[in-house]
């Protein structure tokens, strides 16, 4: 764990020159502060009224303040106090916050109630007012400063970490650990806290800045560092009134605080990414339209011409940041889907079948890119299409049904709103006809009319998938792409959904590209099958031909792997 973190951190920094510069600057600053008595011989509290408010010079590198004290010396000695107090306070705050948050979140019940109320009470006071009260009660000094700041800061963290803990406690590996009989303290330390390290790091680094400012505020009120002693916050306050005649008094501590806070936040991000087990994907790149948008119009599916065809499609990982850069995902894949035809695309995980489905929707995104061949929709090469061109096609001419209906639906919109949204996104249905179309499509997918006003969480898995299908077909597309639409469903629901897709296909003359790893599913719906393996087409043919007499050993292996054949054959049902 620790060495992987360091390794990732080092790798992240190598790729990030800005991070290196920040690290060098902050490292120098911290080192200078630590070695302050050696670096400068000047006493930070020695006043010299003859040298008041002198600008930076060879003698006073950062000038002098209104008491003639050397700003550079005060900056370095002040840094020791500011950074030291902030670091100790962050550790205390995080210590209490993490323990309280995790305990409250994991155990729940009475523990959660008591801790929750305590947090509520502490958070009801304005943070700074409470800190002033605590510091005043304890009577000034650095120790009481640290205590005052910690007391007011921990509840906010406890609350955030409690929420994160609730999430992690429901993860499979925590349940598995409970089943394994792992002691509670080890579950909390090894599973829960370890997986919260990202948020913990980010919170700690973000708060370093807040704490430095809080310390300076308390010092300003005379509750922290006593006035002649140097401290960044109090230096800032001293210089505030003289900002026009001696800007260096403000700039020196101001820049120091800015630099430390900025770097802390920046490192928080790098450190969080380094603790992640897997690489975080960059955002989808939005390609701005470079020319007026030409909405492609697809002809109605009456021709014999293929509706969707892949011609020698090759897809590679092209992003140099990806650890898989150069890997080939699809290798010269060619097949087509004719009007009114259902093509079953069979492949195991990693065969590239979902990449093909995404290609047909124009949703290929980095790190993948089409490096050879062409995807044709109704005979039109889509290579030149930009984001907005595709937007005119998706949901209008090509509909998508994917595996997980719950994640495909927005939990805060009613079913009716979500289906209407698809119609509103395209002008395929006139505004006046939309209510009628909504009723018709809900009926088409076999849902009761009352479902329109309901929310996704009120429906069963099968009903949700029907809603997703309704959304996909409401604009009467020519092509439906179904990517493992029944994998998350049980056998009875699966069968009904398959029959629904087949019936809708016949009713509306839909072409369907049906992607699945389950041969039994494909055998039920598809007219033709394409078998994909490691990015290549292994075998194609009509469903009957391929299932009755598979030519390739791989196809046979897949068929032999279907469970249920080792005892006796399934009861044949025609």
């Amino acid at each position, binding site marked *: 764990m620790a060495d992987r973190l360091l390794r990732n951190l080092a790798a992240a920094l190598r790729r990030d020159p800005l991070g290196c510069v920040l690290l060098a600057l902050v490292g120098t600053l911290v080192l200078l502060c630590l070695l302050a008595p050696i670096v400068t011989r000047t006493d930070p509290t020695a006043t010299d009224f003859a040298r008041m408010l002198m600008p930076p010079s060879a003698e006073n590198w950062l000038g002098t303040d209104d008491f003639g004290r050397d700003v550079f010396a005060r900056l370095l000695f002040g840094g020791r106090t500011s950074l030291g107090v902030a670091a100790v306070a962050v550790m205390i705050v995080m210590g209490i916050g993490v323990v309280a948050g995790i305990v409250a979140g994991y155990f729940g019940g009475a523990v959660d109630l008591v801790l929750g109320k305590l947090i509520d009470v502490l958070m009801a006071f304005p943070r700074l007012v409470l800190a002033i009260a605590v510091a005043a009660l304890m009577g000034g000094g650095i120790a009481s400063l640290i205590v005052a700041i910690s007391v007011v800061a921990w509840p906010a963290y406890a609350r955030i970490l409690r929420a994160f803990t609730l999430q992690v406690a429901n993860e499979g590996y925590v349940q598995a650990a409970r089943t394994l009989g792992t002691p509670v303290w080890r579950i909390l330390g*090894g599973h829960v806290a370890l997986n919260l390290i990202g948020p913990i790091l980010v919170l700690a680094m973000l708060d370093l800045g807040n704490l430095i400012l809080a310390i300076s505020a308390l010092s300003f009120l005379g509750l922290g560092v006593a006035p002649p002693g140097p401290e960044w916050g109090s230096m800032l306050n001293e210089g505030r009134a003289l900002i026009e005649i001696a800007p260096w008094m403000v700039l020196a501590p101001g820049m120091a605080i800015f630099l430390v806070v900025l770097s802390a936040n920046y490192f928080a991000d790098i450190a969080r990414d380094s603790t992640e087990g897997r690489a975080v994907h960059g955002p989808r790149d939005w390609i701005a339209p470079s020319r007026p948008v030409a909405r492609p119009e697809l002809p109605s599916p009456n021709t014999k011409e293929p509706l969707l065809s892949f011609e020698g499609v090759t897809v590679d990982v092209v992003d140099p940041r990806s650890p898989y850069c150069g890997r080939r995902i699809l290798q010269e894949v060619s097949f087509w889907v004719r009007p009114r035809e259902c093509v079953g695309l069979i492949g*195991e995980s990693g065969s590239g079948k979902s990449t093909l489905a995404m290609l047909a929707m124009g949703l290929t995104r980095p790190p993948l890119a089409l490096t050879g061949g062409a995807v044709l929709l109704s005979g039109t090469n889509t290579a030149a299409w930009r984001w907005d061109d595709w937007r005119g096609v998706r949901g209008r001419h090509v509909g998508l049904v994917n595996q997980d209906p719950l994640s495909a639906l927005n939990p805060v919109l009613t079913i009716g709103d979500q289906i209407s949204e698809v119609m509103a996104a395209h002008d395929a249905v006139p505004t006046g006809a939309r209510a009628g179309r909504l009723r018709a499509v809900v009926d088409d997918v076999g849902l009761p009319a009352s479902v329109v006003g309901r929310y996704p969480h009120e429906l*069963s898995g099968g009903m949700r998938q029907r809603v997703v299908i309704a959304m996909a077909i409401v604009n009467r597309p020519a092509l439906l792409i179904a990517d493992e639409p029944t994998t998350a469903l049980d056998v009875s629901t699966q069968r009904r959904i398959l029959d629904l897709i087949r019936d809708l296909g016949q009713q509306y003359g839909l072409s369907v590209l049906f992607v699945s790893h389950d041969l039994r599913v494909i055998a039920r719906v598809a007219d033709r099958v394409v078998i994909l393996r490691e990015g290549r087409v292994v075998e194609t043919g009509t469903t009957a031909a391929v299932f009755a007499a598979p030519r390739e050993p791989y196809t046979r292996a897949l068929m032999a792997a279907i469970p249920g054949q080792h005892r006796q054959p*399934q009861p044949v049902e025609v």
Partner: protein
Amino acid sequence: MLSVESLTKRYQGQDAVCGVSFSVAPGEIVGLVGASGSGKSTIARCILGLERPDAGLIRYGDAVLTDRAGRRAAGRAIQAVFQDPRSSLNPRWTVRRILSEPLETWFGREPSAARTVRLHALLLQVTLSADLLARYPHELSTGQCQRLCVARALACGPALLVLDEPLSALDVSVQARMLAMLRDLHAAGGPSFLLITHDFAVVREICQRVLVLNAGRIVEAGPVARVLDKPSHPVTRSLLLDALPLPFQTAAALDRWVDCTKPTLDVAIQRTPSS
């Protein structure tokens, strides 16, 4: 060995499981079949002590699992493999640490070399390579992750393994290998299995006895051959009818060429991509 007596569990006033009773004998493979929402997983969670039943008793030997002390006494004897292998593994732990977790809990610390030997034996049991020890779960395929979950459960030396939909996240050929591995484990004197699934094909492959669950109640129970071939309850019949059949041409064809192509099959499956 394990006996469940009129187990009832309610969620928000609705019965998820209602008066379910059954038992699992040593060395037996029992299938628990039902549609989604029929209460299969709730029963598993109650047996594993992850949920507290509202009524009924779960006994393991002399221990009553429904109270905390009883669950602790049964300890490592009842273990589980869950549906989603990816989420069941801590993403920040290496394979070595994942497998060491139960060993440390139940057998204490031991010298690193002895631990490594033990870990290799566990990996071998689930036909995983020994050089996976330094890897992280995201570097493994889903099938490897699921086998790792089985190895972790076996590390405790359980008498009963609860398998909650262990195959539904896997590819067909991976499913077949997983089933073969489970069958071998059982043949080699492994634990009893309580296999939860909605797929009758899987039940037919591996189970000896089957329980059919509908809306929180057991509607039919008996030996696999009897229940699957002569179902007496309409729910069983409809579940059986809904299971997608193998295309009939294939069923006939398979008989013809399965035997002669067996070696090729294994080679072909072995060469499937692992990621």
